[in-house]
């Protein structure tokens, strides 16, 4: 009873704007995970490293005097470079995909430390005109509106670009490569090239998201990407499971799917905030995330085997 009394509904309410903003920023990363995990059928663990790389690059450039907007372009480019390394290890050197991505992820840890010079670098919203910041949520209604509009426009722009890109000849080639590499090669598609391109675009988005998130929390940290892949997968799967039925068979399904992934990331953060609000120990958050992802990954499989038994 005392426990229930100690829960403040208003505190939960107050945490929601943060969950939405955070969810949208991480949603961009989740789109990167969607590209590799769903379109390319490649379990790419590079993201845990490239997320922090994007954050490190953006923060160091902003501290060096660069405007936060172009700094994001460099964060995107740094992410693409990480994706290229994984792609190179996999396609040119024949290292299995998941292992290639782990190698890149581990090496990025050292690279990120080198970029930052230490494990953590702050970028203060008081000193720099940051694109997004946690502080904007509490400062005034106008900054609050600004951060929402910024996040929403970012999401719409990225979804629009991805929708266009995966409708082009090159986008089709990437999707064919992921779906059926044998068919792709028989139709003259260079599967190695398109695997690398997809990994670069995916990790570019992850780097961009890292650059935004570092600004949002006011610092880049060498550990900020730890577990990012799990959050990305959670967003992809939650989005598909919860929203999938709404747009099945409609026009522009692909665009809806991308928005659903961002929606999945937002829901993930809402759930996480509820968990924190319930005063569950924050040390257990990652365990909790992993369990949530495991459950959502298992649902389609269990459903399928259950149906199989009925027949």
């Amino acid at each position, binding site marked *: 009873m005392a426990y229930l009394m100690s829960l403040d509904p208003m505190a939960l309410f107050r945490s929601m704007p943060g969950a939405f903003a955070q969810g949208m920023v991480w949603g961009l990363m989740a789109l990167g995970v969607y590209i590799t995990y769903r379109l390319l059928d490649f379990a790419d663990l590079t993201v845990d490293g490239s997320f922090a790389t994007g954050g490190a690059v953006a923060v160091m450039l902003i501290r060096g005097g660069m405007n936060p907007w172009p700094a994001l372009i460099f964060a995107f480019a740094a992410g693409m470079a990480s994706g290229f390394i994984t792609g190179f290890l996999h396609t040119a050197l024949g290292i299995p995909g998941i292992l290639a991505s782990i190698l890149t992820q581990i090496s990025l840890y050292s690279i990120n430390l080198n970029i930052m010079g230490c494990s953590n670098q702050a970028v203060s919203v008081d000193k720099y005109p940051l694109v997004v910041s946690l502080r904007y949520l509490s400062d005034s209604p106008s900054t609050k509106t600004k951060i929402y509009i910024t996040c929403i426009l970012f999401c719409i722009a990225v979804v629009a670009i991805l929708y266009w890109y995966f409708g082009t*000849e090159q986008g089709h*080639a990437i999707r064919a490569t992921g779906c059926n590499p044998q068919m792709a090669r*028989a139709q003259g598609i260079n599967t190695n090239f398109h695997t690398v391109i997809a990994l670069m675009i995916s990790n570019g988005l992850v780097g961009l998201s890292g650059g935004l998130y570092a600004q949002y929390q006011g610092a880049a940290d060498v550990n900020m990407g730890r577990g990012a892949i799990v959050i990305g997968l959670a967003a992809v799967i939650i989005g598909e499971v919860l929203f999938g039925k709404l747009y099945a068979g409609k026009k522009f399904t692909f665009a809806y799917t991308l928005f659903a992934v961002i929606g999945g990331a937002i829901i993930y953060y809402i759930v996480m905030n509820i968990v924190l609000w319930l005063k569950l120990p924050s040390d257990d958050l990652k365990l909790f995330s992993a369990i949530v992802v495991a459950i959502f990954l298992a649902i389609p499989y269990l459903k399928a085997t259950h149906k199989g038994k009925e027949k």
Partner: protein
Amino acid sequence: MAEMLKIDNIRKTFNPGTINEKVALDGVNLSLEEGDFVTVIGGNGAGKSTTLNAVAGVWPVDSGKIYIGGDDVTRLSEYKRAKYLGRVFQDPMTGTATTMSIEENMAIAGRRGDRRGLSWGITKKERDTYRELLATLNLGLEDRLSSKVGLLSGGQRQAITLLMSAIKKPKLLLLDEHTAALDPKTAAKVLEISDRIIAEHHLTAMMVTHNMKDAIAHGNRLIMMHEGKVILNIAGEEKKKLTVEDLLHQFEKVSGEEFASDKALLS
């Protein structure tokens, strides 16, 4: 008549130097003129599909040369060789991308051998063309352009793969037991479509089959393979007069064994 395919003494050994070593191709020679349609028969492990895979460049051969339309393709990787080839596989899952729509699959085939850039992956004009092409199949697929291929039956997929293989006229069409996974009625229908497409586009084709009747009824030439070699090469009038009994007899004579495949006898 120009020579469309020349296979010059190709050899391939899988897993060399291990206990699983297998000489799959032991000096295969074959020459096809433009418009030739050759059926390829032989027992299990004779090297029929392996020969097709060698031509398609799935892996490099150990020695020998392969020319398609006069070009030496021996060193070309599989995706680069694709511009010369149309391919249909035994497994209906192999020839199409299941998570993509019918029209997207066809558009991918329509760009075989082209550079894939940032223009739209499919145009309005192409869509109309594909609708007309699909209508020729009489499978009702012309109204389902945006359906995912994964929703279709094996026969429908093989029919679409056949269309795809001819959207860009290939110098050589490779049919690798493409009816073996289908029920007899569907198989007959797919064979009929194959014949029609080959005739319409005047294609040069190789068709591997387990079914001797089909091998005799289709095409103008027939080869039999055994232990990685072409052991029988029949063309013209001689092919027209061929019977299943002749083939079995020939096979026993050349190989000195009973034809072990029940499938071949029964079909």
